[in-house]
């Protein structure tokens, strides 16, 4: 089924404007952040106009209504990814979600060193120099730097699944990379820079065999394709609401329920406690234990509206539309003189973010030219600097697509690229 593109686009008020005077806005930067439909913006303002109150605090009408909306949103978002409500922790963004997991390692390790008793679950999070964390060379800084910090604090070793020259994970040595020493395998589902969709099932199955935990960074997959945790079976999964039509400031961490109940806490304070004394406290059970302080309730409700919006279009349709545009853009870019795609050259295991370089024009200059024509792309290393080094490019230009894009957006970009080439005489 093809999407009703004009109806969809008219739901996004941002496209009503002209940029740089008289240019239609062509937004090809949804991998950085997506635009928001009226349905999400309205859900936010409606919450503030009618239901704003302190969630899980107070017993007046507004506090109760706000709490109900917040918890309904949790159930709705859970079912969107095939999870249960008691497995969904709200954070600020995916970066915080991944930090929560990395800190559960350093916190469990520190408690052990202080001689505190650990639960069986917590014990799986104690690491030292003889243990390993397995990542890939393809990770966003958000799934790299927290583990580097964990290495500095505990001595745990970092290992990486390499990338092939054409931008896929090289699984040749996976049998030796995953061993009894591996404590967690943390992998990006779809690369934000190469567009590669990683075949994580095999890697996760291998990880489970040796008793390692698994984390899936699904920032670029949950917005664009059906993702079901009961099929992929990760222990943790992180994503950000703002990349899937939702508001800024709300991220999700899915945690398998048997792990969640005993996991070390991360951010502590109000709302996550059971009983508090001056010198020690006990903590709430379940997801509340990981939601300290006043939560961004309106944003959670807004994310739930975004999920409703996507569900109505149907994630299979969203996915197919993205693949259609990607295929069209790959062809057009490959036909263009002096343009090289960085990452998979074909549609095999590939999603809707395309990085490319233009001979003799730096991406920053490419981006400047596109911007002058009203086209928003991302330039630079896309928070994946090691990927640029591995692919031997200093930076790239990235076009990424979503439900409000159409093939003519690709055509406009190609035309603008030709103008830049003419200007720089290449």
């Amino acid at each position, binding site marked *: 089924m093809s999407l009703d593109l004009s109806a969809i686009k008219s739901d996004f008020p941002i496209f009503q404007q002209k940029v740089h*005077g008289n240019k239609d806005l062509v937004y090809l930067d949804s991998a950085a952040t997506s635009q928001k439909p009226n349905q999400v913006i309205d859900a936010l303002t409606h919450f503030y106009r009618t239901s704003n109150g302190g969630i899980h605090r107070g017993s007046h009408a507004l506090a109760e209504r706000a709490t109900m909306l917040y918890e309904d949103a949790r159930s709705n978002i859970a079912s969107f990814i095939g999870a249960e409500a008691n497995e969904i922790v709200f954070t600020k963004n995916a970066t915080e979600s991944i930090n929560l997991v990395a800190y559960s390692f350093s916190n469990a390790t520190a408690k052990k060193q202080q001689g505190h008793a650990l639960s069986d679950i917590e014990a799986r999070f104690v690491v030292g120099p003889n243990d390993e964390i397995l990542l890939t060379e393809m990770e966003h800084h958000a799934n790299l730097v927290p583990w580097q910090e964990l290495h500095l604090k505990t001595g745990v070793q970092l290992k990486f699944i390499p990338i092939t020259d054409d931008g896929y994970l090289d699984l040749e040595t996976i049998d030796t990379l995953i061993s009894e020493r591996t404590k967690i395998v943390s992998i990006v589902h779809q690369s934000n820079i190469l567009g590669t969709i990683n075949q994580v099932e095999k890697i996760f199955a291998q990880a489970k065999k040796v008793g390692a935990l698994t984390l899936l960074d699904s920032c670029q997959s949950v917005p664009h394709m059906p993702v079901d945790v009961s099929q992929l079976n990760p222990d943790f999964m992180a994503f950000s609401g703002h990349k899937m039509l939702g508001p800024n400031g709300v991220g999700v961490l899915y945690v398998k329920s048997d792990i969640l109940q005993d996991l070390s806490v991360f951010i502590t304070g109000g709302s996550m406690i059971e009983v508090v004394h001056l010198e020690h406290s006990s903590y709430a059970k379940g997801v509340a234990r990981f939601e300290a302080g006043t939560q961004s309730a309106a944003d959670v409700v807004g994310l739930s509206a975004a999920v409703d919006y996507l569900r109505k279009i149907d994630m299979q349709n969203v996915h197919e539309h993205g693949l259609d545009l990607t295929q069209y853009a790959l062809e057009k870019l490959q036909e263009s003189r002096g343009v090289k795609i960085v990452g998979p050259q074909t549609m095999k295991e590939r999603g809707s973010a395309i990085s490319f370089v233009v001979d003799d024009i*730096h*991406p*920053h200059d490419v981006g400047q030219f596109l911007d*002058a024509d009203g086209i928003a792309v991302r330039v630079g290393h896309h928070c994946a600097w090691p990927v*640029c080094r591995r692919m031997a490019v200093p*930076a790239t230009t990235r076009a990424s697509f979503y439900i409000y894009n159409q093939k003519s957006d690709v055509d406009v970009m190609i035309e603008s690229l030709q103008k830049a080439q003419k*200007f720089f005489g290449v």
Partner: protein
Amino acid sequence: MNLESLYQEIILNHYKNPNGKVASVDSPDAVHHVNPSCGDEITLAVEMLDGQAHIIFNNVGCSISQASASVMFDLCESQSVSKIMEIEDSFLELMQSRGQGIADDELLGDAIAFVGVSQFPARIKCALLPYMALKDAISREIEGVSK
């Protein structure tokens, strides 16, 4: 939007035929500066001889940062530290002028062409990168000499 004001002829010429750039900088005193938002990089070393700065650098990056390094080299090579600091200050002022330029522009020579860059907030860092590296390298060189 006026791309011509950004990419002035002088800038494009320096970009295509940069001055002062060497294939590699081996000096142990070299500094390495990067622009983390776009990946531009410069490695630069300064040697002080008879009160004059001698500059070598190698860089990768966009047209603005490459051209800026070339113009900076033309302005600052064989100058005294105090003159270089004057140039740096004027150039910084130019970059903060939001396209208005500055009153005393004689000091800056070709660098005046960068006035257009000051209207593009994302590109100001590109133009300043080589100047930041030079400033850093000079202060290291001076500290090293006084030790």
